[in-house]
């Protein structure tokens, strides 16, 4: 049995934040590790830092190097998705993004943030979330994986690579409307 399985998601996220705050107080340099928040036009919910983290997760999760779908598009879809979500979920997911960004520090003791890891290193670290002994790390990985896989594989540009001819009726719109 996972030693942390008694923790609920929100409790974990709160503890994570408390831990981050403690580390921040002790370390001082923690927040500067993220660097300047990139300015991203047109965001509805996410700030620049979290948008960058979401892009980094998309690049780790999916083989975007060889796909016609970009991490920028996927992160914007996530931003649009959040616009329709309840405040409670938005807060949880925003916190989860923060935890992922500082995952290398929290779980591996490395002074580097997730979005600054090289792609292969980031994938190795992200697999650590997927396969973690800590249930709540798995929960975070699962939540983002589900979202990304649904959006990515719902994109007609991806279908030829998986042998899916698309829906069988009518001429469906070439792309889903951006939320």
């Amino acid at each position, binding site marked *: 049995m996972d030693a942390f399985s008694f923790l609920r998601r929100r409790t974990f996220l709160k503890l994570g934040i408390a831990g981050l705050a403690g580390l921040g107080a002790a370390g001082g340099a923690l927040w500067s590790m993220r660097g300047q928040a990139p300015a991203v036009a047109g965001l509805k919910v996410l700030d620049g830092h979290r948008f960058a983290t979401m892009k980094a997760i998309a690049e780790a*999760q999916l083989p975007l190097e060889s796909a016609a779908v970009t991490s920028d598009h996927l992160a914007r879809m996530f931003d649009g998705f959040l616009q329709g979500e309840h*405040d409670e979920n938005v807060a949880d997911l925003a916190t989860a993004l923060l935890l992922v960004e500082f995952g290398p520090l929290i779980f591996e003791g490395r002074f580097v943030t997730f979005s600054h890891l090289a792609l292969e290193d980031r994938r190795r670290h992200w697999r650590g979330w997927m396969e973690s002994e800590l249930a709540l790390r798995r*929960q975070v990985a699962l939540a983002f994986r*589900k979202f990304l896989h*649904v959006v990515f594989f719902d994109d007609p540009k991806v279908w030829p690579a998986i042998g899916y001819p698309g829906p069988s*009726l009518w001429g*469906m719109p070439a792309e889903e409307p951006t939320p």
Partner: protein
Amino acid sequence: MSAGAIHDLSSDPRQGERSVDVLIIGSGCAGATAARALARAGREVLVLEEGGDLTGQKLTQRDGRMYDQLYQDRGGRMTSDLTMAVLQGRVLGGSAVINASDVVPLSDEVLRFWQRKHGLTDYSVEHLEPHRHQALADLRATPIPEEQVNRANRLLREGAAKIGAKGEVMLNNRVGCQGLGTCLIGCPIGAKQNPRVVAIPDALAAGATFLCRARAVRIDDASAELKRVSVRVLDANGYHEVGGFTVRARVVIMAASAVNSTQLVLRSGLGNQHAGKHLSLQPQLGIVARFREQVTPFRGIPQAYAVTEGERFDDERGLWGFRVEAIMGTPGIIASLLPRLGAEVMGAMAAYPQLAASLVLVPDEPSGTVGLTKAGRVRIDYEHKDNHKERLREGAKLAARCYLAAGAYEVEVPMHRPVVVTSERDLALIDAIPFEPCTAPLMSAHQQGGLRMAASEAEGACAQNGLLYGTRDVYCFDAALYPSSSSSHTQAPILATASFLSERLLAKG
């Protein structure tokens, strides 16, 4: 009598107070059935539906938009530990719009079990018989024709036959099916004989009114002659509340699903010590098999064949054992179940046309609860008992054996660390699956309980006629009432019991 109407309130969120004889909350199998019966009897009926009215080309056969629009919480409803996806419809017509169109009637065995174990003396085979018959008539229930059993389902059947496992082609409620394969995100040609196609048009003809994008959030004055129900109007996508109004009703019927009717009771501060308890989720575990041949699983009826070898009835616990049922989904939802990363993702999905998949379905003990978050949203907790896990393993092994016998080169239980079986020697790998939280592709499509009915207030939250104890004419007519699993697929039982309860309500006057 003038015909009723469907109104989408999102375009006109400023509504005044309404008064009505019967207010029904939810438009699925229970709500639509009750609306039709009561409207036909001359009662003034108003139905609230949180979702929109999506039919025809509004059902785009695309994952992203359809899960967003047709499912509760935009397809994201989960148990609180994120271990199990809780799939429920949120659309005019309810979950039957997005189910796999399987018809498994409420059995004599279940009814006798409810009588013997739970003291539900009103639920005799004789009392329910005309309503079970009506349910099957509404569903136009027929066996799936042989020519509509697609290759993915045939592979499961061939494998089962080779290893001597019993199974069956299921009954379904399709008429004029063209094999589009997207049943789980709605049927754009209206082949599914669900409430949106059958009971709702009947109810409209009898004068019932349906309000879409209308969420009931609280019932007040539950012991008074006139109840007061607070309703929030949602925006066109159903994301946010944009208005509100009050409905005064003499009779309130909750038919919003096991989870949502229970949530409404809890939000209203109603219900006794049983409210929110005894929730059954009937867990289902996904299994994937890969073949060398083209299976083209995304065309044709996704769920036509079930291996019933492991299904049985337990005198103490009711419906028991497990079933293995073929299934398939659109690419997004299948990919979301596969724990892959980077290039592995495309590697796994490149085999999509050669996949077959199944769900192991386990009728469970009611070991879950419905509660509220601080914000008043649904919180579902579920104790995944050892006997559930054991039956999931047995079912997964049986599915693997069937697929291997049918020629699969590998069968995967898509755990967070995938468990891959390539021969019978590997089946012990499945025995070793611990089912820790958030490691398996578990889902629930048949939630039952939460407002269990019982012969006395000491044993349940509702009486046998659906009356919520402690209220006057506030009823529950949906699967929240069930004290144990009613069936492996709940639409036929819900139609039958809602018809039965409607008749009793009318007899009361």
